[in-house]
């Protein structure tokens, strides 16, 4: 596999504030690469630099071999973008939004209609194409933005917090589209998220905190850093059970009141044989696999923080309330 994005010693300063403090990484062709970190960690800044919206203070970033500062237009033509905040023109119809994009990215005239129908079909919005975007739900708008991002057949699709503010069902369907893009169209996907559970869908994850990458690996490998799976049992005789566990199963015990907890490398394979062989009667058994939350907790010593709606969202709600009604 070859790298489609190469980032070397990237630094971005806003005045005195260093938002990105010298990060380096590569994204492989055709993978889903996730940028995971709390709000304000530097995810959006990094993505903005890669998309040529911001210039780095220091360091280089290359996309498909093009430098993001020196060859802006080349980079822009090679990428699709779905921003964290909506960026559709709500007064235009879905199709008009796509037409604008097709012109801007110079999709050949004879291809325009075909591609618009194609991407609309992909996100199941064909029947709503003549409707104004202001009548769309949050999930539909996001789907339309994904469609728009794909219209010029980009090599890399950037998704900045693609599921933020969406309900769980919509989030799942967005993820289905993302996986389908990778599998059927072999597009490289670069996304940021602060949802740990969603990051599991990525092929590789970079965990970013305070402007630095503190870990970069597959979700599985990251989780195995934390340790094995944890099994929790309660038995008819806990003391006897503990003796047997230590003697016959060679597991690491974890101190906890009222029940027995121990760590094994692979609980899914361990449990069936364990139940068959264990001599003491088991009342209940449960297992906990490490999550990326545990990884983040271990790496930073704190839980990922989930903040409330930011200033832009509030501003938007305000502006919406002030807009003249009766236009629909």
């Amino acid at each position, binding site marked *: 596999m070859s790298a489609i994005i190469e980032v070397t010693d990237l630094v971005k300063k806003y005045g005195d504030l260093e938002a990105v403090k010298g990060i380096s990484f590569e994204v492989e062709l055709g993978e889903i690469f996730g940028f995971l970190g709390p709000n304000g960690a530097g995810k959006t800044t990094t993505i903005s630099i890669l*998309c*040529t*919206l*911001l*210039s780095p203070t220091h360091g280089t970033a290359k996309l498909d071999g093009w430098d993001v500062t020196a060859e*802006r*237009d080349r980079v*822009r*033509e090679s990428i699709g*973008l779905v*921003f964290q*905040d*909506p*960026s*559709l*023109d*709500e*007064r*235009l119809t879905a199709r*008009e939004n796509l037409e*604008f*994009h097709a*012109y*801007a*990215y*110079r999709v050949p005239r004879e291809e325009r209609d075909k591609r618009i129908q194609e991407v609309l079909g992909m996100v199941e919005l064909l029947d709503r194409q003549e409707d104004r975007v202001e009548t769309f739900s949050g999930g539909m708008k996001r789907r339309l933005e994904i469609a*728009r991002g794909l219209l010029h057949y980009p090599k890399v699709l950037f998704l900045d917090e693609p599921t933020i503010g969406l309900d769980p069902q919509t989030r799942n369907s967005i993820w289905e589209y993302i996986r389908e893009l990778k599998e059927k169209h072999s597009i490289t996907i670069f996304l940021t998220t602060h949802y740990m559970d969603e990051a599991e869908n990525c092929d590789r994850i970079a965990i970013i905190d305070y402007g630095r990458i503190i870990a970069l690996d597959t979700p599985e490998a990251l989780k195995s850093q934390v340790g094995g799976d944890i099994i929790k049992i309660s038995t008819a005789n806990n003391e006897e059970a503990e003796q047997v566990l230590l003697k016959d199963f060679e597991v690491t015990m974890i101190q906890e009141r009222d029940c027995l907890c121990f760590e094994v490398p692979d609980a899914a394979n361990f449990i069936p044989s364990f139940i068959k062989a264990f001599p003491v009667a088991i009342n209940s058994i449960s297992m906990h696999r490490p999550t990326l939350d545990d990884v983040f907790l271990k790496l930073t010593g704190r839980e990922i923080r989930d903040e409330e709606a930011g200033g*832009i969202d509030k*501003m*938007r709600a305000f*502006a919406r309330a002030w807009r*003249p009604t*009766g*236009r629909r």
Partner: protein
Amino acid sequence: MAGTSQQTRVDIGSALSKLAIGTYIIWLRDLKRFFRDRTRLIGSFAQPLIYLFLLGTGLQSAFSLFGSGETKYITFMYPGIVCMTILFTSMFSAISLIWDRQFGFLKEMMVAPIPRSSIALGKVFGGGTTALFQGFILLLFMPLAGIGYSVEKILGMLLVMFILAMGLTSLGVLVASRMRSFEGFPIVMNFLVMPMFFLSGAFFPLQNLPRWMNVLTKINPMSYAVDAMRGVALKGIAITSGGLAINIPSPPPELLGNPQFTSWLSQVQASIPQMPQLKTQYYPLGFDLLIVVAIGVVLTLLAVWRFNKQE
């Protein structure tokens, strides 16, 4: 060597075509939005009509004191109202950039492989076109303001409108590219747009003004646009006849034979102030247009430059 020069030519060609495409789509989007927004459409020509007919009728009596003779205030004011409409429409249309920024569409434009200049230019042309459309609607009311139609007048007014609209939209883009939120908007309205409007001569003749105000009206580019517009629209219509501020009824003829009376009468006439001769146009049309075009071009260049600079 030949290869390099050809390469350069191709680059310039593709840069120009990108500029043209970018400008075109942003212009087209602005027009679509304008014609779709019914409240803005109705508001945009209701406002000038309200000014024209309410203010025009209300101030008529005061205007008569100027010795305006047969010409009505509404006639005098009409070209000014046309300029006002262009001023407001152009500024609002440029201010939509802030809206685009808040609602995210500016990002879609900024990240597209089109030159930044084309975004500013598209806005300027968009503002120019919408303003022209509104000016066109106002032309329908020309006869109600006591001005007869003529091809020459209509074409001349449309030309002035277009030049003015492009310059003012540029000014708006310049202002909007520095603004991040709507909070600054009232400041712009109160300290830029309204003074430009009031000091332009749209409502009152720019004559016999205090010195300081005279200076302000001379540095206000809108004055020259209003001057040009009035010159074109009121061609062949005199606003004042000059003469005395009070009409003295003709004395009975038998008294005119009395030398004492006639000398008294000439004293009385000399003590009554002469009305100022109000002019339709203060400067030659070419001079007005030159100033409006020059300021417009400078503003457009500034707007494009400023827009290119922002992140």
